[in-house]
């Protein structure tokens, strides 16, 4: 489904990585690993089409994502370093607004249910400004609860979460894989998914192997 071939990333005068290739099928998850600054975030943004690659190509269902455009974006769910939530709005409103933006239908009950699942019941109507760091991240992650699009790209989803929440998110990703979804994620913590195949990709000199896969 998702295929990257010979990706190269150049930042400033630095070549972060080159020749990164992999292929990801349904039900598989790719964990991108590497030291700080090895280019994980850059790689993920390339996979989404946010940053152009210096060389190489990303294909989705066999076609380059640049060509697919909206068709590809309609199947992609990206979660970056930033939470993409508005501090003024409540978690509930944020969740509904995010769904509307992605042209998904999410009714209020489903949204409330999602928030409850990520442990924010009782906070659903409090402006996000007042939430703790971890609660903000949970709000952002609540999108995943009812997310049905096949490709998830998650950049350090576990940051700021407590262990219980980490487990919960792992469960969500596991369920997604079991449904036949794909996931690409980065994390400095060990990732345990309950289902699906886990593949790893090491960036940078740490393992001295571009594309061990």
């Amino acid at each position, binding site marked *: 489904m998702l295929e990257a071939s010979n990706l190269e990333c150049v930042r400033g005068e630095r070549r972060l990585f080159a020749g990164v290739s992999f292929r990801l099928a349904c039900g598989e998850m790719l964990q991108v690993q590497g030291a700080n600054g090895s280019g994980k975030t850059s790689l993920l943004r390339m996979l989404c089409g946010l940053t152009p690659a210096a060389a190489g190509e990303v294909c989705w269902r066999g076609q380059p994502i640049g060509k697919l455009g909206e068709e590809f974006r309609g199947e992609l769910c990206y979660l970056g370093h930033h939470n*993409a939530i508005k501090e003024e709005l409540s978690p509930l409103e944020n969740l509904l607004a995010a769904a509307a933006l992605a042209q998904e239908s999410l009714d209020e009950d489903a949204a409330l249910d999602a928030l409850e699942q990520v442990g924010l019941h009782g906070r659903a109507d409090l402006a996000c400004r007042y939430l703790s760091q971890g609660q903000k991240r949970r709000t952002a992650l609540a999108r995943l609860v009812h997310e049905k699009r096949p490709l998830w790209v998650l950049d350090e989803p576990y940051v700021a979460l407590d262990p219980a929440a980490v487990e919960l998110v792992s469960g969500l990703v596991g369920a997604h894989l079991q449904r036949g979804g794909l996931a690409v994620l980065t994390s400095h913590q060990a990732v345990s998914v309950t289902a699906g195949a886990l593949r790893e990709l090491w960036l940078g000199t740490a393992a001295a192997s571009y594309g061990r896969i």
Partner: protein
Amino acid sequence: MLISIRAVIGRDLRLAMRRQADILAAMFFFIIVVSLFPLGVGPEPEQLRKLAPGVLWVAALLATMLSLPRLFADDHRDGTLEQMALAPQPLGLMVLGKLIAHWLVAGLPLVLLAPVLGIQFDLSGDGLAVLTLSLLIGTPALSGIGAIGAALTLGVRGGGVLLSVLVLPLYIPVLIFGAGAVDATLTGLGPQAHLSLLGAMALGGVFFAPWPTAAALRVALE
């Protein structure tokens, strides 16, 4: 398609309502700038009447401009803009939605306030009517042009003030025709010619601006 525009408008309006201060404060900025002028140039009513169209239009322009930096900056900072760029519909449409919301929040209140402030400058009934009309037609153009500038300066160092440098020259035609319409009325010529030019600019601003804006946003996200 319309649904997603509606969603964007709805969200932005809700945000504005939540902030309230935003709407009120844009209006007060307009009021205060207009009221500052007499303090700077002196209180003679004769002179003030002559200045009125220019001052009101310049103030409207500055008030719009001040609200521009936040048009995309908040969405950029917290990652919402990335989500919009990745949404399965043209970014331009969503920009259009944001534009409409921006006008409702930042443009319309100025139009409604203008007659009251005109009185402070001792304008006649006719003058007040044309002033309001010219603002009603002209402010959408201000929002449209402003959006391009806001997108171009997004995430750029010193964005806020750089924005005004980019946008103000483009605002000049709107200012000239807007203030010109009122002036023409006051001096007895009809305002029609000015107003129709203003209308053309507004249409252009609203339907043409979203596309370069969307392109600029994509560049900002790279």
